[in-house]
């Protein structure tokens, strides 16, 4: 098969771009978790923040990705390197599913369980770490899973601003009107998305409270 041969012939570059892709997606997802999970926890506990935060994350989600990359281009330190810029943009997009699922997961903890914990003298951080987060972890992870799968697809567009990743093959293939080249980017990207989905799905099952 032509595509397979093309990929094999260019396997060094395919691997290199896959690695770049993984880097963009992985780092941005980690950043999104670092911001999104605390935000989700905050809005689950302070109801008045929940509407503005969720609305904000929703609005970010509606900005077309190419436009967001463009908006961020003139920003001083960020605009200097395309990969920084791509990681920030991808972080923004990954926020919504992570914030929303953290919020939903924590809100879904049985109030009776919380009250029992509080009544026995657990303080707020003990309640969070020993009760709320463990009980919400599978819901939070399914948000991370959605974020990852979206990011893998979205990161292909980052090639348009020169951030690298598997999008390079796709854009190149589009320019050359060569499906083999497009697929050399698209197939590894799809495999990445499926693998991420499977791994997090497995984690989710393992960590789900019985």
């Amino acid at each position, binding site marked *: 098969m032509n595509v397979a041969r093309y990929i094999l012939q260019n396997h060094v570059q395919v691997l290199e771009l896959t690695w770049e892709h993984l880097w963009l997606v992985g780092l941005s997802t980690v950043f999104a978790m670092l911001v999104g999970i605390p935000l989700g926890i905050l809005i689950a506990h302070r109801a008045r923040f929940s509407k503005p935060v969720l609305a904000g994350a929703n609005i970010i989600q509606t900005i077309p990705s190419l436009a967001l990359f463009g908006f961020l281009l003139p920003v001083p330190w960020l605009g200097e390197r395309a990969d920084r810029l791509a990681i920030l943009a991808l972080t923004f997009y990954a926020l919504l599913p992570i914030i929303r699922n953290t919020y939903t997961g924590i809100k879904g903890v*049985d109030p*009776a*369980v919380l*009250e*029992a*914990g*509080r*009544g*026995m*003298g*657990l*303080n707020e951080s*003990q309640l969070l770490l*020993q*009760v709320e987060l*463990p*009980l919400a972890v599978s819901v939070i992870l399914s948000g991370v899973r959605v974020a990852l799968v979206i990011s893998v697809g979205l990161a292909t567009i980052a090639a348009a601003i020169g951030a690298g990743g598997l999008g390079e093959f796709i854009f190149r293939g589009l320019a050359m009107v060569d499906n083999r080249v497009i697929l050399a980017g698209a197939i590894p990207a799809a495999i990445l998305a499926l693998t991420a989905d499977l791994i997090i799905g497995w984690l989710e099952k393992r960590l789900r*409270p*019985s």
Partner: protein
Amino acid sequence: MPITADEPPAIEFRNVFCRAGGREVLTDLNLQIARGETLILLGRSGSGKTTTLKLVNRLLEPLSGEIRVNGVSNQLDIIRLRRGIGYVIQEIGLFPHFTVQRNIGLVPRIEAWPEERIRARVQEMLQLVGLAPDVASRYPHQLSGGQRQRVGVARALAADPAILLMDEPFGALDPLTRDELQREFLALQRTLHKTVVFVTHDLHEALRLGTRIALMESGKLITVAAPHDFLRSTDPLASAYVRAFGDGLESALNRSTDDRGTS
């Protein structure tokens, strides 16, 4: 049980008012609970009995008035106060993601007991509430309702609190299991002498377990009486209760004295 002059009551409510959701849920409550007694808060839903209970471990704060626990009112360290008070609610209060071992060892662990001592204590507690040692490694969802409730009691007793708050602990159980647990509760009380505040709407349970019964209605304390006197009370609400539960109440009393092993 009479209140002795030299030591303060375990729990004391003085002119306590409480509001929740824009309405008064407790009006001018005055009540003393002596050390070692089992005080039953009896009343229908919304009568204020659970509110009264939660004021003791400060899950709720009063609008005005004073609640003294062991003679101390307004203890600043709420967390410390709560760790000294056992709390049992219906079976759903167990942590579903913890094994029985970790559920029972919860307060000892956050109090930083050594691991060895926690394990020994958990086994001791399991035995006390009549559960097999191997139950320790199971999760709450793998237990029957009665077993879960026993674990709830064991968890509340683990750090050896002097006071035990129980909010309809046996409410969701089938009659046979409930009967069993009530009998065990009396046996436990005979050896442990905790100060227990017990919420129920079941008069049978109240008569059987209580040393005194506090009847509540619409946020007010109507009457407090020992079980025998409650049955003969001339208070209209108390006698309405007695009528509603009909025959067989005397036998609940008799059973209770049999179980207590005293006259």
